[in-house]
């Protein structure tokens, strides 16, 4: 009951940003995919030299250069952006509104309060970015949209980008909790998340990318719980 109340409050605070990010990504993604689908529509005028759909050349292009994969940079920006915003909303804003004492002085452990915050923030991010990504993948898989559905690796790589957003969220949260001056160790959380994201982006092996993400997330989480338990409010 206490966790549910905390989760509900935190999720409600994330909701506007979550909806905004989801709408932006969905609107752009669906517009882009529709444009690509139109580009490959068999009823359009092919006299300008494009490869008509159904040909071997077009199928080859779709397999290796899926229109869905071209959404990668957008997905990356939305995921990282939402991670930054949610981290700031949950861990920076209470410093300015001075609502920490009201939140913390209640019959719940600090770890419960932090877990509720992180669960709500992560859920909001995964629902917004991951949910839209699943929808776009499903849309791209429809046979009437593209003759060749996007390969599964595109879908998995998309989820890696969603997880990068989660890392950014954790890094921003850690920076928000830090009491150091902004130009010193306060930026450690965000800087560390950026490094992990950078390393992951340059990593071609999925297993190694996941290992780097798991290492980064574990370090950020342990720091977050330790900082939250010992910090002065």
């Amino acid at each position, binding site marked *: 009951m206490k966790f549910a109340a905390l989760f509900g409050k935190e999720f409600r605070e994330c909701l506007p940003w979550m909806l905004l990010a989801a709408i932006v990504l969905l609107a752009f993604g669906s517009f882009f995919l529709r444009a690509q689908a139109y580009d490959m529509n068999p009823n359009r005028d092919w006299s300008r030299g494009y490869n008509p759909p159904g040909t071997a050349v077009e199928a080859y292009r779709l397999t290796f250069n899926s229109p869905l994969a071209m959404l990668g940079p957008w997905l990356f920006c939305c995921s990282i952006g939402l991670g930054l915003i949610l981290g700031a909303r949950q861990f920076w804003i209470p410093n300015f509104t*001075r609502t920490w*004492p009201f939140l913390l002085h209640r019959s719940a452990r600090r770890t419960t309060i932090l877990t509720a915050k992180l669960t709500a923030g992560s859920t909001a991010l995964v629902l917004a970015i991951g949910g839209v990504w699943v929808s776009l993948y499903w849309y791209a898989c429809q046979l009437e949209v593209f003759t060749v559905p996007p390969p599964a690796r595109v879908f998995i790589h998309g989820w890696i980008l969603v997880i990068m957003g989660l890392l950014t969220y954790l890094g921003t949260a850690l920076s928000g909790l830090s009491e150091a001056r902004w130009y010193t160790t306060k930026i450690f959380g965000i800087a560390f998340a950026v490094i992990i994201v950078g390393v992951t982006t340059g990593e071609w092996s999925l297993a190694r990318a996941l290992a780097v993400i798991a290492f980064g997330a574990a370090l950020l989480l342990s720091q977050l719980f330790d900082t939250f338990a010992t910090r*002065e409010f």
Partner: protein
Amino acid sequence: MNDTVLQTRGLTKYYDSTPAVDHLDLEIPRGCICGFVGRNGAGKTTAIKLMLGLLEPTAGSASLLGCDSSALTPAIRQRIGYVAEGHRLFRWMTIGALERFQRAFFPKQWDDKLFREMIEYFDLPKKKKIKHLSNGQRAQVSLALALAPNPELLIMDDPTLGLDAAIRRQFLEGMIELIMRQGRTILFSSHILGDVERVSDRIIVIDKGVLRANCSLEQFQRAIRKVVLSFSGDVPGQVDIEGLLHCKRGDKQLELTLVGADDEKVAALAKSIRAETYNVVTMNLEDQFIEFTAPANHKRLFQWEER
């Protein structure tokens, strides 16, 4: 049942090299309304936060309801109400949503009837968001939220700051309502000495982080006295008396502020320095507090030249 609800032992907090709270030793008995007073920056908020475990002490310790402040369990926190300075609540929530949120943490002890009555008494619209409420209304919501779980100990940090006289009166009545319930204890900090005088039965004075007084209000009011001594001849240059706070020389008069001087001591002093007459000036709590906490060499802000 332990009769001390709040205890601090050498409680100290430094910010860099500045002491905000310096070796605070306090004991607050159960069932009292305790006014916690001090000038701006005296360390009241820091002391309260230390007591609640929101700040880590540099040295010393505090305990609430027998539990160390640095390790207050959810079960103990459930028994302590807290109204934070400035009534900082979640601005986007309505009063109703805030009530549901708060009630979730006190499933058994939440007094729904009391909360409803207080909201009706203060005439607060339940559907209104906190951000649309005035300062006074937010203070009333804070009080209702803190009182509804029936806390054994209520700690309030400057709860009447920024409220007008009428709302302050309502707020104080709410506090008295709580104390009427047996065994409840209230600690509240305030700048408004009139409020402390009206509702407190105990007073704690803190100055530059140091505890200056912790006694019953009656004792405090009896202890601080101002005596005006008149002389026919020269005013004595030096006055040596125990508990002398301030000494102000006039043309034929000597004005002394004393701590702990009873009628006998004052009479003996007047006799020893050959005062012609002496007069004990009645002071209210505010005057007493100002005299008690003013530095020995305090100056007036504006020194007008006499023509």
